[in-house]
């Protein structure tokens, strides 16, 4: 691992992965999706995970997002050993600390923009009055005021991803995980979305973006490159192109 600075102790890290292994059974052959992954992520970091498809970057993201469990190794999130939690406790951690953004947005088609943004609050059991207040605020912040009552099929790609980002961040998670967030968008809209994510990062949210596109990856302050389930380079670009 390149560049392991002394301040990156597991105890103080937001995310600490140690010796993470994950294998899938594909037919009769074992696929090593993650091998011996060690990673320390500090609060407020902006990380791009890059690599060819099948290199394990999505698995890493799912692991960090508690959608997947490692076969071996320990995962500490905010100093807490996550792998020992049961499914419901993990769901609670996902709800409170993690926000997901997907390439294909994953908006619920029958719900309006406001309804989609409201979903995490509903699932968390927030009373209806407070929910609508926070949704209204989020709509304003993300410039979706006039789109509140439109369904996803009435929104442009950029608007859809903005709704998805609003939904992912409405509970103010510690980590924002984005899997190819610009993959389904044209260049200009993609730029816009990346800038939005970077603004959120500037406000203190830890941002981890999986991409196989070099350009947005280069903007991140820290670039992790994966191949065959292992981290092959971990470069900190202290200056960065990002302000």
């Amino acid at each position, binding site marked *: 691992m390149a560049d392991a600075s002394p301040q990156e102790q597991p105890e103080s890290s937001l995310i600490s992965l140690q010796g993470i292994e994950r294998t899938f059974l594909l037919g009769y052959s074992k696929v090593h999706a993650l091998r011996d992954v060690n990673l320390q992520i500090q609060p407020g970091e902006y990380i791009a995970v890059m690599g060819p498809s099948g290199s394990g970057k999505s698995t890493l993201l799912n692991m960090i997002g508690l*959608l997947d469990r490692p076969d071996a190794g320990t995962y500490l999130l905010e100093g807490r050993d996550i792998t020992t939690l049961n499914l419901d406790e993990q*769901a609670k951690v996902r709800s409170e600390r993690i926000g997901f953004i997907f390439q294909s947005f994953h908006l619920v088609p*029958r719900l309006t923009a406001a309804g989609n943004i409201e979903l995490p609050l509903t699932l968390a059991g927030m009373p209806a009055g407070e929910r609508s207040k926070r949704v209204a605020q989020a709509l304003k912040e993300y410039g979706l005021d006039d789109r509140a009552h439109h369904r996803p099929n009435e929104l442009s790609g950029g608007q859809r991803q903005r709704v998805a980002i609003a939904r992912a961040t409405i509970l103010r998670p510690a980590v924002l995980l984005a899997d190819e967030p610009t993959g389904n968008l044209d260049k200009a809209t993609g730029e816009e979305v990346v800038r939005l994510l970077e603004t959120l990062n500037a406000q203190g949210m830890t941002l981890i973006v999986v991409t196989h596109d070099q350009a947005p990856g280069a903007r991140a302050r820290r670039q992790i490159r994966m191949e065959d389930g292992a981290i092959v380079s971990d470069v900190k670009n202290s200056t960065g192109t990002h302000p």
Partner: protein
Amino acid sequence: MRIIDTFRYAAQAATGTPLRTGLLMLAMSIGVAAVVILTALGDGARRYVVDEFSAIGTNLVIVLPGRSETRGFNPANLVTSTPRDLTLDDASSLLRLPGVTRVSPILIATTEVNAAGKLREAMLLGTNDEYIDIRQLKMGMGRFLSKTEQGHGASEIVLGALIREEIFGNENPLGKTVRVGDRRLRVVGVLAAGGRGMGMTTDELLIVPAATAQAMLDTNTLFRIIVEARSRDQLEEVKARVLKMITQRHEGDEDITVITQDAVLQTFDKILGVLTLGVAGIAAISLAVAGILVMNVMLVSVTQRTAEIGLLKALGATSGAVRQMFLVEAVLLSLAGALIGICLGYLGAAVLRQLYPAFPAYPPLWAVMAGFGTAMLSGVIFGVMPARRAAGLDPIQALSKR
């Protein structure tokens, strides 16, 4: 997740696919409506028969000539193999028995009535003055048969309402003469319209004294004797006394059958009650089919909404919450279907009553409740499996489905 939000989410999911939801509710509602309408028919039949039987009076003991029971060979049968006639004297003798309030002899035959140049076929009933009280009939005009010893003698006749209308029209028939067979009889009264009993309307009846009828028909025997007991409790005692008295009068030969109205009523009530239950059972099968349909639709729904389920989990929904959503959706669909079905069923029963006013096709409450309960139960039972499948989905695979 709050319960109310679970319900709202499930309702939105259901209304999000109107066609599928509509078809499912249709299937469920047809099942429930079938239960409601079929039991309404069954119970209507039961009520109809019971009403018909009650309409002939209350606390009645009916005497029929001949034994309905098969018995083994008896040397006496060689000598007296044909039953004796039931006579007017037999009927009179019953009046003296304790616990008996009224006795009516009955003769029935079809004849022709002829008056004012018009001829009509009609049912002739020979009886006595007590008949109107036993049957609880009402007079439209004039009076009933006069009180004579068991209806001997007088050449008088009481007309049914329809007969009077067809023969006399708007004329006053009282005091006029009609010809029945080869006899001329004076009209003394007309029955009120709408009397009925034993599937027979009194509107087309000609009522004459029993002795007159016997003379007209050239017979000594009676068709029935109807005995009214003082109270329901005394029915069995009266039945036994009647049997004993007639047997005595027939030289010790038990050649009559005595039945109580209660026994007949109970038998019919029981038979038709079982019939209703059976029909309800058959209808319930369609509910089970609807339940399987619920499962099918919910399974399809789970498959179609795989990505959504993955998303919900990524957003922090527990497996329990996902399971609840899908179960609640199945239950809501069943509930809506069942409620629509009950409405349809009541509507159908109302249409039946409209078409056949005499037929009291009211769905029994137990059947409505049972239909509703079965619908809900099958919704829950068949909703569990899809809900479990939804809850068990692996979020990564669910999300990777585009």
